[in-house]
């Protein structure tokens, strides 16, 4: 099960955080700070896995963004890489060649997509099409409910 997922930039700026295990705000900040420093310090040729505290961190860099998942010891590390890749593909399909700015300005969408892919730290849908369909339908519902009024 995934414990948490963090997206951050090469400069160490947090772009998205998803916690599947309860932590206090203070702990979250501490983990985020320490993990970002640790991962950024690793050289590009090193492997994507890091045993860190009591979790197994699986991370991968896509352009300027690091995608970083904290998994439990029994989880398949290689599969987690596939999961990260799947998420990136979905973002890419949704935004159309996604870049960091898309995620900054539409962070809520990035969360919505993640929530259709992963629930409670486990994968809920293995079909890209189904995820995008669910997101599109909800976007539509949102337009209908808020009429022409752009509320966000």
């Amino acid at each position, binding site marked *: 099960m995934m414990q948490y997922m963090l997206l951050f930039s090469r400069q160490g700026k947090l772009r998205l955080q998803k916690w599947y295990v309860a932590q206090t705000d203070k702990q979250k900040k501490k983990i985020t700070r320490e993990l970002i420093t640790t991962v950024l310090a690793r050289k590009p040729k090193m492997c994507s896995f890091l045993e860190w505290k009591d979790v197994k961190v699986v991370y991968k860099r896509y352009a300027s963004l690091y995608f970083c998942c904290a998994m439990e010891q029994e989880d398949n590390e290689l599969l987690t*890489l596939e999961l990260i890749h799947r998420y990136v593909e979905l973002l890419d399909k949704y935004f159309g060649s996604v870049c960091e700015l898309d995620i900054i300005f539409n962070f809520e969408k990035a969360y919505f997509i993640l929530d259709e892919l992963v629930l409670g730290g486990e994968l809920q849908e293995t*079909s890209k099409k189904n995820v995008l369909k669910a997101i599109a339908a909800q976007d539509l519902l949102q337009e209908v409910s808020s009429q022409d009024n752009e509320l966000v």
Partner: protein
Amino acid sequence: MPTPTRLRDLIRQIRAARTAAEERSVVNKECAYIRSTFREEDSLWRCRNIAKLLYIHMLGYPAHFGQLECLKLIASPRFTDKRVGYLGAMLLLDERQDVHLLITNCLKNDLNSNTQFVVGLALCTLGAIASPEMARDLASEVERLIKSPNAYIKKKAALCAFRIIRKVPDLMEMFLPATRSLLTEKNHGVLITGVTLITEMCENSPDTLNHFKKIVPNLVRILKNLILAGYSPEHDVSGVSDPFLQVKILRLLRILGKNDAEASEAMNDILAQVATNTETTKNVGNTILYETVLSIMEIKSESSLRVLAVNILGRFLLNNDKNIRYVALNTLLRTVHVDTSAVQRHRTTILECLKDPDVSIRRRAMELSFALVNGQNIRSMMKELLTFLERSDAEFKANCSSEMVLAAERYAPSNKWHLDTLFKVFLKAGNYLRDDTVSNTIQKISSAASERQAYAAMRLWTSLERAAISGDATEKQPLVQIAAWTIGEYGDMLVSEASNAISMVDDDGEDDFTRPSEEYVIDVYQKLLWSTQLSITTKEYLLLSLAKLSTRFTTQPSQDKIRVIIDTFGSHIHIELQQRGVELSQLYRQYAHLRPALLERMPPMEAPATNVQDVESEPEPELSPERAPEQDALLDLIIGSEPLTNGDADHKPPVANNNNTTTNQDILELLHGLEVPPLTASSNNNNPASAGAGTGTGTGLLLAGLLAPQALAPAGGIGDALDVPKVTALDKNGVKVVLEVTSRGGDCVTVTVRATSAAPVPLTDFLFQAAVPRTFRLDMMSPSGTVLPPHGEITQVLKITNPTRTALRLRVRISYVGAGGPTLEQAEVGGFPPDLFN
């Protein structure tokens, strides 16, 4: 009120800020504005304001004032509001927050909505932030939704059930009937969530595991269809059909087939098929192979299949991709106990990995290397590991050195080699060496043959002299301590010509030993004793050793020097050293006649008493001296890597512990102070709660009041247990704490602590701590809260592992602040069934 700034405009403003101060001022201004709109109950723009607040929250600014507003959004009928409200709830609330009741009601409403996406949002939120209370309140709704005909809802409900069971394991029963039918679905989302849920259930209880054995054929069929079915664009990943689902099924098969010949037999073929048919040029193929290998090695598979699996790992190990190499090492480590010889074949490659620049790979390679050490390869392996130890990071040194000491102990081909290796390890591990190694080594030398003792003294002298001259003795204090003790005892053999017969040629064929003069030895001692950086403990070793040398050495100048040095300690600033200085110098004055007798050689030491008196199942009453220290070291491993002194108190000067005062030790002392003879305190009290509430000195201060006997609560008796063992730990002043065994299997039990209160006022800062005997291991999960409302409940889960399977006993400590001020209760809890761990 004007229309608020749009989210993207705020983001632009913040990004335009050139300094941190500028950013802060933009954020503060916006936060102030958002607060004011919240006060005015502006419901039209609430959604936009929360979205902005969430962005501000991500930047690290406080946003808790938005919590209630999120709940208001959730309650709104508009979908946009709900979507953002639930997002906010997931980010700003978690199970620790006190708005449970409110959010539970919102969730309950939405779980009954007619719009599938509203139900979806509610399920997603429940899965992320469910507290045990919420889980209990909403479990039946979730169970109903698992049976929904809508796949979109079904899959989400299945994962929600998975989280609920994780949170509250005893809710599992109610989900069982709905779960099995999940596997008959076609939809992959439902299948994968169903498999996840079943996996959790099987890991939860052995009974459920048996219940699900009959689904093995279903799983095999699904897997077969995935492999044999042609290309399906919807689930294809680089030519592999739904690797996510394949991996989940392979893992569940592993759990079902473990220790079960029949189930294993049923899955042999499909595992062979997966292992041979999977494309390995891409990461995704390797992902599946990796999972397959793990399954093959863990179930009772055919030997040909095992050969296949080990070959796959061999290929992995040679892969250029670092990630694949990492998982290969990881898998070899997990399978090494099944088939050591197969793993041995890859030894050279594994040793190569010790030099990898990547810490993740090095760590795995180190662990694997230790698993591979045996009597045949010990010499070459130790050589490699010594090089590794020398270059390794600080975090590895403690573990690596104690593992090396253990391995040397077990497989040493000769006594001399053993000592040599130990000394080399000490030299390279420096101050990272664990305390117990010092005493164990001293004991070993003291009980060795006299020729060996002379050899040890001469070897250690060389190291000591080098350390003193190069000035790095402070980095190698354990070595200095051992050297001081040995030279003190056997100094006469060090300087005597009679020891010339002992060969000092080392492994590399060199003899770097020069016999020192007595005076030179004393000069080196003086240099070390004068150094300001050596710890008091090390100086105590040196001072006593020096006094011993006065009866070993014969020349007058060396005698005079010793006397001068000892006398100077008569005015040392440190009281313990001063006392020794004064006492020892008396041996030159009134009591000079006693000196030779008092400073005679130590008789061979007994192996340190092991601390495992608890283990009644130990059938052999007479421990041979070689075995005992090993056991002690093993015990230490069980306890963990913390440098708690263990069993060596006898050999150490009383003020020994240089800097080990941790919270753990405080607790330890507390427990010792109470003098309950059979319980040895545990060091595993690493629960975050205790760290947060009463750390360090706080715990220490509490001790004083605690020792009064009336503070002791009556020991618990057996509760009205039917099938789940339940023990009341405390029932006093309206506060009742019950320990309930919620799951058990093998040597591990899960205990749920339920604290309830009948007090009229809420009890704050509620903290539950527990300690178990040394042979047990205790993991404490975080508690559900720290405030105990009247008639409320706090739960906390403890996982207790007990490899010796003796009866469970606990010491507990409960502290809270109630109407009468801070209260602290303590109790010993017994009364668990003796066969709990079977």
